[in-house]
């Protein structure tokens, strides 16, 4: 257990808000972590170094040079299937907006990274598990199309449970739409870089996640096509140690590198400079 912060003990005060808004349990080691400290440490556990999930806005602050300009911020789903449930889809979306402070599971825009102009898309797992429906697919496509028009590298940070069930086949079609955009973009000779963060599975890993020229996995991320639960239920045998971890993917040749959160921007910028800077004269 983490020690109670001194100011709390001294005043003998009880936090005004519910405890879970102040503390978070590390999924890696079970340590109780003070949220404010955690935010200052890029949400890395002070005890075991575990990478806790990072929201889209924090991630943008981490990677961009402070000049991020959002594109198409106001897109929302038209709820194509008019999905009703005990909790209707529209209501779940409304709840996720409050919870995440976002209108959808991805934020896209333009910025520079160490001075190199790029298009940046960042997914947020706290919005419907980062699932891809019509809006996520549309924003990814618009980002890539905008990068193609401006001849900019595109960088997408993924965090997703896959296609969004509540949009049915419309969600699956986002894989086709984004893939077509990536195909055109790649044909122009422009670089796509993806940073796969925890977790990246299903329809997002099986489309733009693994269509990039350079694929960076963030340390500790779970990455795969099928979710662990599905694999467990299908094969009913013990999964290997570290199965579907970033390191596992590196060892199996699926990603270019595994990078800790603190070094992500440097690793990204290094490649952006390499492909964007003036060519060395022959």
């Amino acid at each position, binding site marked *: 257990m983490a020690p109670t912060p001194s100011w709390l003990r001294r005043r003998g005060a009880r936090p005004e808000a519910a405890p879970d808004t102040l503390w978070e349990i590390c999924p890696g080691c079970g340590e109780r972590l003070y949220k404010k400290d955690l935010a200052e440490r890029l949400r890395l556990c002070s005890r075991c170094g575990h990478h806790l999930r990072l929201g889209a806005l924090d991630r943008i602050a981490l990677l961009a040079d402070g000049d991020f300009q959002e594109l198409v911020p106001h897109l929302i789903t038209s709820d194509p299937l008019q999905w009703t449930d005990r909790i209707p889809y529209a209501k779940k979306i409304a709840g996720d907006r409050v919870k995440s402070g976002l209108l959808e599971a991805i934020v896209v825009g333009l910025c520079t990274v160490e001075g190199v102009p790029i298009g940046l898309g960042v997914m947020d797992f706290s919005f419907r598990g980062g699932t891809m429906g019509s809006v996520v*697919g549309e924003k990814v496509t618009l980002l890539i199309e905008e990068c193609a028009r401006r001849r900019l590298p595109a960088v997408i940070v993924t965090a997703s449970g896959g296609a969004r069930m509540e949009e049915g086949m419309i969600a699956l079609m986002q*894989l*086709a739409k984004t893939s077509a955009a990536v195909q055109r973009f790649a044909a122009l000779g422009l670089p796509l870089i993806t940073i796969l963060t925890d977790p990246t599975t299903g329809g997002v890993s099986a489309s733009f996640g693994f269509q990039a020229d350079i694929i960076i996995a963030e340390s500790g991320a779970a990455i795969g096509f099928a979710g662990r639960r599905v694999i467990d239920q299908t094969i009913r045998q013990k999964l290997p140690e570290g199965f579907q971890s970033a390191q596992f993917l590196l060892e199996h040749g699926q990603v270019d590198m595994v990078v800790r959160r603190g070094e992500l921007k440097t690793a990204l910028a290094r490649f952006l400079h390499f492909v964007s800077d003036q060519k060395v004269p022959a």
Partner: protein
Amino acid sequence: MNVIVELEKPLVELEAKIDGLKKLNETQRVDFSAEIAALEAKARQLKNEVFGNLTPWQRVHMARHPRRPLALDYISALDGFTELHGDRTFRDDPAIVTGYAYLDGMPIFVIGEQKGRDTKDNLYRNFGMPHPEGYRKAQRIMQHAEKFKRPLVSFIDTPGAYPGIGAEERGQSQAIAQSLILLAGLRTPIVVNITGEGGSGGALAIGIGDHIVMLQHAVYSVASPEAAASILWRDAGRAEEAAKRLHLTSDELFEFGIIDEVVSEPLGGAQADATRVIADLLAADKRALARLTRLSADELVDRRYEKFRRIGSHVERVHDSAAR
């Protein structure tokens, strides 16, 4: 247990009875024709009751019916089919069949997801669930189609890409992702047939094309109803409810513009008259190819881009005041 097989049991029994009487009619002196006519009328009525108005869940089971025609049944109906094997890297995946053939004289490359007919066959075919090497074999064929300027025709029938250890180790995500890229930019006509189960990314990996044909009782879904129920409610037992909500039937998908054409099936499903259904489906492919082969490669790829660009757009814009 297949819901349709259960439903049609009384019908199968009745038809057996009719067959028996017909045999007696031929061999005995007694005339059973009146009884036969009455039973046949009853069978027709029963058939209408059973198959006339299938629910989405029943259609899922129709798509999985053990006697439903499989990819190789369609492919074998083409002229001179020659199978091509292997991904050149790891192994030959029997869940995906590839090769070349002639459709009424037109040389085409084919890719099909192949389920098994019985348990032993299904173990060999992995129940039609491809591994990454299956998709990589399909990619070879896609590239051949472009290189040799031959149309590509695919047959979708899979519960989904296989979720297993080896599949993950060898990059199931990358294999599907790469197939999608190749199909999106392929400079030759592509016709896609959904003949049975279209399960998720594992189906879409051979499912981007210029003309998408679907059999009436095939289903095509973002995830199998069981998987969707498990994801949505952590309860695979609610699959029937998921089937209803997912909009996975041919008429619903046609309305959404996700598929371009529905080929109807006889009452009782494709297996009731497989020869006719196979001929009808291939005729639809032929009509589509006759139209598509008139387009230049640039036109094809541009139209394909616009097609999938449009399908996915179900978004609205909130007003500034409401945002954030």
